[in-house]
């Protein structure tokens, strides 16, 4: 019971509601026995993307790759490299191996990172990352041990310690790691290697996923089954954005009060949350009453929480720019060039705050390719390859009357949403949920590109017009000469 509540308190208010509701239903059904989140997911793997053999293998590769990229970017190493190998061992069993040269994982954390759901949820920090809650890699381990019975093999080394090798499994009932083997190994450089044996079926989507990821993350060298995508640029540093009271659950808030070392209410507010100045904290304190934070009654805490929830985060433009890292015009243009379009249009919106999260929308259009509109979706620098129909991006693109913008040929549309919090519609992170703010931002960019296309088409018409005029003038000359 205690475990459940502690797990619950680690979820954000806007955690994927469907998961939460499902959990509650199952909880109510099995009211005599408490169910861990691991057990819940083990019975509902479809939420995580393990729907069929192809998609399962794809999800394994995707989760490992995303984690590796996150670590490598956060570590800020010199030549960030990620090597992935997918090898068919026999029948439908595959070996998936992912190696990175990031900062490595601390020896004491390794079992929990890989074999505990919701470990690693960043509590007082919001940053643009691919992984979100600390579910992804644990789900890989769960799927591996359930499909082939094999543990995950992790080899890691941090800067100030030796290399270690682990063989781990998840205790599904308790949501705790089981260390099957642990030993010291020789490892030269820092980094982590993860190896799993899973059941699945190879599909070209995996190639496509890695290829697109490599194209839009040019600051990382990615190697897949021998094929190397070399890095070329350097990644700028991303800063995290401050957590506001509105991001916290009530229970979390109480926990914060319990653990704080500040005495007065206003110093608690001022020091715990960036974005609230001393004067404002004072005003709030006056409304509550000048008391010691730890002596507040339940009702007063609730009142304080509701008041603080209304405060919106404010950031300067420079801070906003540093908190999200999009593709940029250069990367988008390079990506679209491979399709040999007639003309490339790019539109990048300015990073904007909405409900205390930073959002950045980028749209690139390679006009003149094929006959239909081909949408390439991206979220936080990684491609979205499944369930296009349910995705907000697809729906928004299709809601535009392209005829109005004189669109006569097909095009490739690249839509990228970069944010400190992407509203996915499913835990499997394949599609983006309906969101009015994002819809409007995407529409803005699409409409701009539509206008550019219209200008281009009218320009082309004019070119042909001038050529025809020249031709006709010569004909007139012929007629005049004949007399």
């Amino acid at each position, binding site marked *: 019971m205690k475990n459940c509540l502690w797990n619950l308190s680690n979820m954000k208010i806007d955690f994927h509601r469907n998961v939460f509701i499902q959990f509650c239903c199952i909880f109510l059904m099995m009211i005599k026995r408490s169910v861990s989140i691991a057990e819940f997911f083990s019975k509902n793997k479809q939420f995580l993307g393990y729907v069929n053999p192809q998609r399962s293998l794809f999800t394994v590769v995707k989760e490992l790759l995303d984690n590796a990229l996150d670590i490598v970017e956060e570590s800020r190493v010199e030549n960030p490299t990620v090597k992935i190998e997918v090898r068919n061992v026999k029948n439908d069993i595959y070996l998936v191996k992912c190696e990175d040269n990031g900062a490595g994982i601390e020896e004491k954390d390794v079992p929990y990172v890989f074999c505990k759901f919701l470990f690693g949820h960043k509590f007082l920090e919001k940053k643009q990352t691919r992984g979100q809650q600390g579910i992804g890699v644990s789900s890989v381990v769960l799927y591996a041990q359930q499909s082939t019975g094999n543990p995950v093999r992790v080899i890691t080394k941090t800067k100030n310690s030796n290399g270690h090798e682990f063989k781990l499994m998840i205790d599904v009932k308790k949501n705790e790691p089981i260390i099957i083997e642990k030993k010291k190994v020789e490892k030269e450089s820092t980094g982590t290697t993860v190896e799993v044996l899973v059941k699945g079926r190879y599909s070209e989507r995996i190639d496509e996923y890695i290829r697109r990821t490599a194209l839009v993350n040019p600051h990382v060298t990615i190697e897949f089954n021998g094929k190397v995508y070399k890095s070329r640029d350097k990644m700028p540093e991303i800063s995290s954005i401050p957590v506001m009271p509105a991001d916290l659950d009530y229970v979390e808030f109480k926990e914060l009060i319990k653990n704080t070392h500040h005495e007065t209410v206003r110093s608690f507010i001022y020091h715990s949350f960036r974005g609230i100045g001393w004067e404002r904290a004072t005003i709030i304190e006056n409304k509550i009453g000048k008391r010691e934070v730890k002596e507040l009654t339940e009702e007063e805490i609730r009142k304080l929480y509701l008041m603080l929830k209304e405060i919106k985060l404010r950031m300067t433009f420079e801070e906003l720019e540093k908190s999200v890292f999009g593709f940029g015009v250069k990367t988008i243009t390079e990506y679209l060039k491979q399709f040999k379009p007639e003309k490339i249009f790019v539109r990048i919106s300015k990073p904007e705050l909405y409900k205390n999260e930073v959002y950045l929308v980028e749209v690139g259009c390679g006009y003149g390719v094929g006959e239909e509109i081909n949408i390439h979706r991206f979220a936080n620098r990684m491609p979205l390859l499944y369930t296009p129909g349910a995705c907000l991006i697809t729906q928004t693109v299709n809601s535009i009357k392209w005829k109005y913008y004189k669109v006569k040929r097909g095009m490739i549309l690249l839509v990228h949403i970069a944010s400190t919090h992407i509203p996915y519609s499913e835990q499997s992170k394949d599609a983006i949920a309906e969101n009015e703010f994002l819809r409007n931002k995407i529409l803005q960019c699409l409409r701009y590109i539509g206008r550019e296309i219209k200008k281009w088409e009218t320009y082309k018409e004019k070119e042909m017009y001038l050529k*025809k*005029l020249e031709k*006709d*003038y010569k004909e*007139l000359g012929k*007629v*005049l000469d004949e*007399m």
Partner: protein
Amino acid sequence: MSYKPLTKEDVLYMIDNILQDIKEQYRSGTVTIDKPVVRNVKTSIMEENIIKFTGKQRKINTKSQKGLTYIYRLVQILKLSKELIKNNKTLTVRDLYYISSNWGDKAFASQSSARQMLLDLEVLLGVPHEALGFIVEEQKDQARLVGYVIAKYKDLKGREKVINFNEHDYGSLLPVNFLHLDEVEFKINADFVLVIETSGLFRRLYEEQYHEKRNCILILTGGQPSRTVRRLIKKFSEEFNLPTYIFCDADPYGFTISMVIKHGSFNLSHISELLASPKSEFIGVSTDDIISYKLPGEKLTKHEINKLKAMENDPRFQTTFWKRQIKEMLRINRTAEQQSLVKYGLDFVVKYLNEKI
């Protein structure tokens, strides 16, 4: 523009001048010519009782597709015209429209655009397009003339021909190549001219021998009078100084015909001086006649009502007489044909006309 009788050589000279000018301009890179504006109510004014074109022009050049097409067509037509004049041949507007299909995408879209082009040429050169070799189509209802008129002219082969309009029953048709009326010699013996709109009444009056009894010329326009008929009426009215009377149906269409003969039309306002006969008079049938004679007729259609309302602003209908006629007609909501005068007897028309004239 005032009309000067021009010889063939003069016309050819004018055409050559224009073509030379265009050729020189071509070498410089762009060709610019003055295109006359569309002739309609807004660009024509009433002067000396005639609707005249204000002469407003617009410059067009070969920098736009429209301009280039226009100039190309112009040059082609002038080329054709030279051939026609030299070889003494004619082309109708419809022929021109078919010939233009040789010009690729610069062909005329319709016969009316070909006709517009010819009318523009008239303004540019200052001659009626008959002088350039282009003639109007024959009308469905052909124009006839009856009376003591003898016309001498040269036909296509250059032979002299004589028409006696008194010879045959119901007179004779006006020949299609009655082009340059100045080359036709008329010998007339009449007191006045009566212009009639419908063939029914023309037949009636012929059978009553009206032209013999009153010693007049009867001209049947056959609906809207063609250019040739209008020129003829003007000739009789002014050169021979004969009083001219116009006798039409009592409906907006008939009223318009009368005023077109008298003051001219907007379409051809650039050569109104050749076509309008301001000395002519309208004698019937008017709305007053419908009321006083209680003539049978039909109700006004929507189209006719709109036309009457447009006529209220027409400069040709601005006399008190006409204003009253239009107002009354809208009130009684009826029209009447000329032939309805037959109601009171076969020869009632004669009595009616004798009262008026």
